[in-house]
């Protein structure tokens, strides 16, 4: 069967969930060959093998951490040359998309970004995209070169499928431009202990209606009662109440959880762009005319300072 390159997103050897989803999708079109780069790359192998990687190509070098994006493109290109894959799949993170796009232009291929599904077709893989703030669903093919496709988190189930996962070291020659953009300092994001926003099954978000940084404790308490991630609207982020890394929407994270609970969020198009594909949507808003109510499966017209704490208590009571 044809081989499919899968770019691995991992933190010091811990593989992130979107990559495991990519392996599920990759198996629909061929045999996954994973490419893991940087610190801990070799440690990813057992997890990748459990999820279907027939081979794991690893490389570590200071360049991957010290310079932006290009060294990783060089490495993915080296893997591409070694494997001659039928397709290349990359997680749709900001960096993943940049790596994929640069590879595409180097190897003379078209690119589809932010796919939400993938299936085998007669003329190569067919990618589904959700566009115009999820108002349209499109299906596209890549007509030139080897399909390069970036895939959004939560696009496929994680399905174990044990495979050989043979580890091979990848030889990488860095191009002249690899050291063009220096990372002079890096401050890792502090872990909150809550699930990753884009990977969480439940997301609880607060907006301008939360009315203050200190009041986000109400949103966090609800999230913790459900084991959920916390999101925020841009209005709440711009006001300095919550970090930008938690922003949901067009210029924040795009989430597609099983359940999305919006409190004190009006539902502007740019916010909807990041959450409209959530399976079940719930909103609490004191304005019955708020556009968010057009989207909901269940909506409460009321004051979030009454409704949310009561909800949290009721959930805790049920869970005992």
């Amino acid at each position: 069967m044809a081989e499919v390159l899968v770019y691995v997103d991992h933190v010091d050897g811990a593989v992130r969930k979107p990559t495991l989803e990519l392996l599920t999708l990759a198996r629909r079109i061929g045999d996954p060959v994973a490419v893991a780069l940087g610190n801990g790359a070799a440690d990813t192998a057992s997890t990748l093998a459990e999820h279907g990687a027939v081979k794991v190509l690893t490389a570590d070098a200071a360049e991957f951490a010290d310079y932006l994006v290009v060294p990783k493109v060089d490495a993915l290109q080296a893997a591409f040359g070694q494997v001659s894959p039928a397709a290349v799949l990359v997680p749709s993170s900001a960096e993943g998309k940049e790596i994929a796009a640069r590879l595409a232009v180097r190897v003379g291929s078209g690119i589809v970004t932010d796919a939400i599904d993938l299936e085998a077709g007669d003329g190569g893989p067919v990618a589904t995209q959700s566009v115009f703030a999820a108002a349209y669903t499109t299906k596209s093919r890549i007509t030139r070169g080897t399909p390069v496709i970036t895939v959004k988190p939560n696009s496929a189930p994680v399905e174990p499928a044990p495979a050989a996962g043979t580890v091979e070291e990848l030889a990488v020659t860095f191009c002249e431009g690899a050291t063009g953009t220096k990372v002079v300092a890096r401050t890792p994001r502090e872990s909150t202990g809550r699930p990753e926003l884009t990977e969480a099954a439940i997301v609880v978000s607060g907006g301008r209606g939360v009315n203050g940084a200190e009041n986000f404790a109400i949103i966090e308490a609800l999230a913790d009662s459900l084991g959920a991630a916390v999101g925020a609207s841009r209005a709440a982020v711009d006001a300095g109440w919550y970090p930008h890394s938690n922003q949901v929407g067009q210029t924040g994270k795009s989430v597609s959880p099983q359940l999305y609970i919006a409190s004190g969020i009006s539902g502007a198009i740019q916010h909807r762009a990041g959450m409209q594909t959530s399976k079940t949507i719930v909103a609490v808003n004191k304005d019955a005319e708020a556009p968010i109510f057009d989207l909901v499966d269940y909506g409460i017209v009321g004051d979030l300072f009454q409704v949310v704490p009561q909800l949290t208590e009721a959930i805790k009571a049920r869970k005992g």
Partner: protein
Amino acid sequence: MSLRIVVTVKYVPDATGDRHFADDLTLDRDDVDGLLSELDEYAVEQALQIAEDADGAEVTVLTVGPEDAKDALRKALSMGADKAVHVEDDDLHGTDIIGTSLVLAKAIEKAGYDLVISGMASTDGTAGVVPALLAERLGVPQVTLLSEVSVDGSTVKGRRDGDAATEQLEASLPAVVSVTDQSGEARYPSFKGIMAAKKKPVQSWDLSDLEIDAEEVGLAGAWTAVESAAERPARTAGTIVKDEGEGGKQLAEFLASQKFI
């Protein structure tokens, strides 16, 4: 030496209107108003600030798009950019990401540049990859997704807030930068700015000016093909209840009925 800044600005359908696909599965531009992509206003703003701080600088705004795309250029000129370049050619209809980056890169080279500034993503295609592709094609450093940017002599510096970490980046000019909507509020054009914009030069280039073959771009030259576009079915109307004091408890019951708790 004066700093030559080229800002790439896209003309996009208004996101608050109904956006559609035309019969050929490209963007339907007839039915909806277009404007300067809001995220590119941040790019124009940063360009103007860098130019103000530099000793002699010139800001050129560049768009690839249909005739109406001039509106996007006018808006950027009225904010304070010095001049504009419009790449317009019937054969560009339906160009994909790869083709767009080719046309932009050729136009940037022709215009002459020390610094290219783009938005983080367009508000229609939203791919967020054109800036990285411009760096690849131009063979210069990419310093992308910056929430803070400054130029110090021939060095560009910036802050990139990523998923896992915040990074401080540095590169030598020439370089390609993209900025996020965290980089600072974009200014509104003043009346004076709007009047002045009318007199600013707008150059028009077509594919032959850029020595690009028509086969390399447009719908026929695209390396991707959209096979179908279906409007998402409207969500079925949900249950909406007014809180009479038990709203939280009712919501908990709904969540339990859906097996979330």
